[in-house]
């Protein structure tokens, strides 16, 4: 059974193919972000122009024809509206043309599920960190099986904070790995630390870092280092509290910011100090990708998830805790 998945929630257009839980193709094209950040309509145009090619590429990688595909999934959300629209329309078209079932997939769940699949971890406590989101989630059976949000950001995602700082500091490309590089060997300056229970906020930290940056009183290196250390310490502390609460045996880290070596190291240290296993997928799957969408679509398909054309919309704020898990 081969299932194809299309992802276009942000700057990446990804098409992946999953067969019996194995990833047999993961093709992608990425929109190059300039100093202006992401302009939604421009990114959507990019996706629309490339979607056919990337689908063909994925099929080629898997050695399959379009007629070999048994079901199709696309990212319903969360994400940027005009961008999401491209995968949805492409998936609907293919589903109609080949008369195959169509599944709307939650982007955050896809990141979580692919990590579970890769490490055979059935019931982890997960930190999902990306540009727009930062959440602590775990499966919960009440009132029925879903991913419960135990803690989350009250303002912006941690990735958003880092990217914003990078743009303020005129670093290119303006994203996490650049900031991490600049931060190397930095010395710590006091920063506002904001954790409430298992929730957190990042704007105070960003404002403080930007203020220091413009005051010229400290080096970019020290500011970047301190901001990053503080943000990741906050996330790790909130995770530690969640771990004590849920008593889960595995800790996983996923989403775009999961590519940060420092964050990986901190969570691993925390998890292992409590005898808990720690897993993080290779970068290929923490960056946005189509393979994880295909994987979840396949799980939905195999578990007999109901076909519902009315649900095949896009939803910019598609909450992870609004999805009923049918495949666990």
């Amino acid at each position: 059974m081969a299932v194809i998945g299309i992802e276009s929630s942000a700057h990446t257009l990804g098409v992946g193919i999953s067969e019996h839980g194995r990833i047999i193709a993961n093709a992608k094209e990425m929109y190059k972000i300039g100093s202006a950040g992401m302009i939604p309509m421009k990114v959507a145009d990019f996706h629309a122009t490339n979607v056919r090619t990337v689908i063909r590429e994925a099929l080629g990688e898997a050695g399959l024809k379009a007629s070999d595909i048994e079901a199709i999934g696309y990212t319903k959300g969360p994400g940027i509206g005009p961008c999401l629209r491209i995968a949805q329309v492409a998936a609907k078209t293919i589903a109609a043309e080949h008369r195959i079932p169509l599944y709307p997939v939650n982007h955050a769940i896809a990141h979580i599920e692919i990590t579970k699949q890769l490490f055979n971890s059935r019931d982890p406590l997960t930190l999902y960190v990306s540009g727009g989101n930062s959440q602590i989630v775990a499966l919960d059976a009440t009132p029925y099986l879903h991913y419960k949000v135990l803690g989350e950001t009250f303002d912006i995602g941690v990735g958003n904070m880092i990217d914003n700082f990078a743009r303020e500091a005129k670093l290119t490309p303006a994203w996490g790995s650049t900031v991490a590089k600049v931060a190397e060997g930095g010395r710590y300056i006091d920063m506002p630390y904001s954790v409430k229970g298992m929730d957190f906020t990042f704007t105070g930290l960003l404002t403080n870092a930007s203020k220091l940056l413009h005051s010229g009183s400290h080096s970019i290196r020290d500011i970047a280092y301190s901001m990053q250390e503080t943000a990741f310490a906050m996330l790790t502390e909130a995770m530690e509290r969640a771990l004590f609460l849920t008593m889960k045996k595995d800790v996983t880290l996923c989403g775009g910011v999961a590519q940060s070596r420092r964050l990986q190291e901190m969570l691993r240290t925390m998890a292992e100090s409590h005898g808990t296993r720690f897993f993080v997928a290779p970068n290929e799957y923490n960056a946005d990708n189509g393979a994880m969408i295909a994987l979840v679509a396949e799980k939905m398909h195999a578990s007999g998830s109901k076909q519902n054309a009315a649900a095949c919309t896009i939803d910019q704020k598609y909450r992870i805790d609004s999805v009923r898990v049918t495949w666990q």
Partner: protein
Amino acid sequence: MKKIGEGAEATIYITKFMSERAVLKRRASKAYREPRIDISLRRQRTRNEARALALAHDAKVRSPALLMVAEYEIVMGEIDGTVLSRYTPKDNEVSRIMREVGIIAAKLHDAGVAHGDFTPANIMISEGHASVIDFGLATTSPSMEDKAMDLILMKRAIEPKDYAIVESAYRRSCADAERTLSRLRAIERRGRYKTRTLETLKA
């Protein structure tokens, strides 16, 4: 010294203070974080917790008595009982306990303390009465938002009908209740936070 509990942040021991049984709370160092964050958080929180405990006690809130403070350690009075999250109240006690929870929040807030982790796991039921424990995340210069968050944390953790009792007791007992409660509604209206409950699932 006997270890009786280990939390994410601190370890709790039973000790003796002036030949009485007492509780010692020690904040452990965390290897995962930058050492200066580690030291400053542990120091700050220990000091903060001690101040909050003292203020709560002065305001006659049922809470542990502060006995001694060191750099990363606090010694406090022991409250023997079962935490609300593990306690099954008898039918005739539920509303009284919930009322007491509301009054605890009200008195704390009037005394200038927001608890910071106001959940059933931190309400100790001792001889049928509610006390509040663990001031580890308390703040002694709380904003409206901090106070509202106390109520939100409790609201999220208990049955809606029980929370209704907490809130009405709070409204009656706290001088600034209306402002806190209107902030609570505002927080709940924030888009990101709104669907945190299971309402979307039930729909």
